[in-house]
């Protein structure tokens, strides 16, 4: 069994250690840095995106602290930084969170770890390319750190021209190159996953017998491959613009700044779905597992992911409603954007229907999934306010927009990410965490999140503009509530960090399948064997929970033998 695997294990150079799990099969720093194992690469991404989250979160706390008091005074500036500092924190919070955390978080970390295992495969289609993607991500991240040292960035994460090319004195060229490199990391990851899902599915696993997480990753990968090249070329243009003065977006040289906005949002709107779809994929796994019921409306879930990916490509103009684009374009983009509500609502209804009359277990991942539905519903409904042209013009560039996209996009990624982290943690590390601490952490994060962003809806409607370092006195109470929420959110994240570290140190050994999930990834040991499965896993419906039964001996669940066929490729 395991012996045969080693015959072709030459790419890993690890076949001498057959029998160990992927964490202890080989040792030393080099065995990690040069690994071709999708699980180790997944962990490298996981650690990296968590560091990025901490960095982006620190900037958020800095800017929220700055906003504790309205009324700019030199004394206050000496204490908590000037408006210039604020511009930098605001920009770096956005840029770090978007490019370094939200885009790679779920697909690159969990996608890498789980996707081949859900297929019963040994690795992704192109393991070397996978490692290369990671190093592109790593290089882009280091370049962002260089940006911090080289004078920061004050353009907003959107880097709109002509401010970024003519006026900004900060490290715009480094930032554009960083985004360019990060873009290629994202493209290559997407390309790898598409090829893997097409060619490494076991015989008998038809597309509609895949776990829905894979459909979500597939839809995400399509966007990554088709949208990211456009921001790639755009950041390259911006870089060349900055060093050679070609004038594409500089009105003084006959360029058109609006063209920059169109090209920027042609990527950056679909990018929202690069962030949200994988989070939805995680929720698709968590809710049926902890409701002990098959997912409701499987095919609609699969198609709605593709529909969201497709519609996402043709709505970018809704970011430009007040830019002076033609009224016809405004109406068209408004109408098309409204249609996104349909597949999104299908997903929400299906999650709720899955839980209906289910045997619901309030585990930590399930808590995040439940909160996810709430946040996504509020975020989605306020999106309809923003899509309607009159509502948009009233709330354009106010905190209402900030609150909307934090609910719908950031909420989705954070809660989807934490749901996934808590769901797959026993599989990844082989350790169980304290569920009570997990639930406490989820509640703190949920309360902190709402306290941060609900007041922003209100002050946005009252006219508080986004991206301002200073404000009128009437907004102070909302800002203070919001800042208090941000601190609470920070405490919540620390709680998560603490109990997860505690589980690493002295957590109980995790059984193969602690949750009773039915997808193939749970048939490996925890942590998995270096080639994922010691025995070819048994295939079956990924949402048929009658295929597993509780096992008193290990405290987990085991696959009932004799049902379903082996997952041969």
């Amino acid at each position, binding site marked *: 069994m395991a012996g045969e695997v080693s015959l072709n294990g030459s790419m890993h150079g690890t076949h001498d250690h057959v029998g160990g799990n992927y964490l202890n099969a080989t040792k030393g720093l080099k065995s990690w840095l040069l690994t071709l194992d999708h699980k180790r690469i997944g962990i490298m991404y996981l650690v990296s995106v968590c560091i990025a989250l901490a960095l982006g979160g620190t900037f958020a706390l800095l800017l929220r602290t700055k906003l504790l008091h309205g009324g700019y005074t030199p004394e206050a500036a000496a204490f908590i930084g000037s408006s210039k500092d604020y511009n930098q924190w605001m920009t770096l919070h956005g840029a770090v969170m978007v490019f370094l955390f939200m885009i790679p978080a779920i697909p690159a970390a969990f996608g890498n770890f789980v996707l081949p295992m859900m297929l019963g495969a040994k690795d992704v289609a192109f393991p070397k390319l996978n490692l290369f993607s990671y190093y592109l991500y790593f290089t882009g991240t280091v370049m962002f750190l260089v940006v911090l040292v080289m004078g920061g960035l004050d353009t907003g994460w959107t880097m709109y021209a002509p401010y970024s090319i003519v006026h900004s004195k900060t490290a715009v060229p480094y930032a554009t190159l960083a985004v360019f490199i990060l873009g290629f990391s994202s493209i290559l990851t997407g390309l790898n996953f598409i090829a893997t899902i097409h*060619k490494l599915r076991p015989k008998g696993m038809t597309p509609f017998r895949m776990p829905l997480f894979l459909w979500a990753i597939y839809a995400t990968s399509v966007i990554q491959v088709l949208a990211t090249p456009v921001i790639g070329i755009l950041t390259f243009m911006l870089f060349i613009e900055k060093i050679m003065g070609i004038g594409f977006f500089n009105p003084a040289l006959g360029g058109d700044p609006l063209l920059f906005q169109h090209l920027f949002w042609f990527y950056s709107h679909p990018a929202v779905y690069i962030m949200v779809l994988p989070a939805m994929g995680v929720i698709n796994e968590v809710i049926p597992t902890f409701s002990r019921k098959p997912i409701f409306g499987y095919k609609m879930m699969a198609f709605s992911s593709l529909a969201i990916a497709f519609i996402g490509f043709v709505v970018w103009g809704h970011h430009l409603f007040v830019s002076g684009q033609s009224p016809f374009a405004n109406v068209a983009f408004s109408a098309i954007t409204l249609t996104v509500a349909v597949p999104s609502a299908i997903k929400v209804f299906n999650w709720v229907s899955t839980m209906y009359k289910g045997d619901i277990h309030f585990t930590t991942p399930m808590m995040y999934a439940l909160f996810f539905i709430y946040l996504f519903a509020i975020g989605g409904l306020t999106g309809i306010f923003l899509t309607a042209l009159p509502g948009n013009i009233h709330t354009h560039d106010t905190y209402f927009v900030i609150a909307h996209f934090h609910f719908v996009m950031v909420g989705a990624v954070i809660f989807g990410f934490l749901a996934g982290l808590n769901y797959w943690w026993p599989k990844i590390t082989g350790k169980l965490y304290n569920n009570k601490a997990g639930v406490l952490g989820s509640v703190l994060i949920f309360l902190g999140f709402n306290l941060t962003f609900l007041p922003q809806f209100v002050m946005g409607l009252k006219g508080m503009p986004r991206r301002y370092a200073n404000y009128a006195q009437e907004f102070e109470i909302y800002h203070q509530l919001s800042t208090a929420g941000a601190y609470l959110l920070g405490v919540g994240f620390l709680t998560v960090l603490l109990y997860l570290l505690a589980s690493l140190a002295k957590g109980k050994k995790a059984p193969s399948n602690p949750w009773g999930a039915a997808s193939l990834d749970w048939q490996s040991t925890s942590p998995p064997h270096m080639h994922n499965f010691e025995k070819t896993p048994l295939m079956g419906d990924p949402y048929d929970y009658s295929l597993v039964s509780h096992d008193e001996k290990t405290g987990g669940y085991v696959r009932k033998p004799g049902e379903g066929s082996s997952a041969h490729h």
Partner: protein
Amino acid sequence: MSSTATAEPAHAHGHHGHEKNLAHHFDTMEQQFDAGKIGIWLFLATEVLFFGGLFTVYSIYRANHPQLYHIGQYFLTWEMGAINTAVLIFSSLTAAWAVRAAQLNQKKILVSMLVITFLCAATFMVVKYFEYSHKIHEGVLWGQAFNPSDAELNHVIEKIEHKGGDPKAIEFLEAIKERPVAEKKDMVAPLQMFFSIYFFMTGLHGIHVLVGMGLIAWLIVRASKGQFNNRYFAPVDSVALYWHIVDLIWIFLFPLFYLIG
């Protein structure tokens, strides 16, 4: 793989351990080849979108300033562009032939086709070098750097007259001669833009040609060591596909810049 999997006759395991080019996570050479094929086609899609952003820039400025694309075209030497087009189309043929040779185990033909493809790419870059260096010498450059010499302007005016004349274009070029060019901002801005787009697009395409030359050189080394055969030729196939897209992009660039004014 499990013992049950090995016992199953339908499962193509016969090559395991014998195929030295088969990666451990694939079961058959066919599966590995198909995965690679999907990968390279997706990569070509990203290339199309990558250049798509630039074609958008081209279209927008062309729609806004059609007359200046008309004048800008006279600064380019269409004969050179035409030679390069022919060279690249021919190199696409030899690249495709190389794939066929690999599939048929024809090592000598494979190596010679790859060498011819490489030489075509080099010819393209040499022609490009003459074009670029002439423009740099005469100040026909991008954006702020656009400051054409009188000799070049006279040459272009002559060219237009030779073609039957275009009073408006000639008047415009005569006006540029009164320096400094930078002071005629509104007037020359679109022409500056024309050359920004020209250099950006052809430059990026040139970088792709250089990358292609590197890849073809790598193939030549591997092919002469006899590493490709009818069961393993995916690298030749993939690089050839890449080379075709590089040709295809040029086939769009050539008429858009050199021919349709």
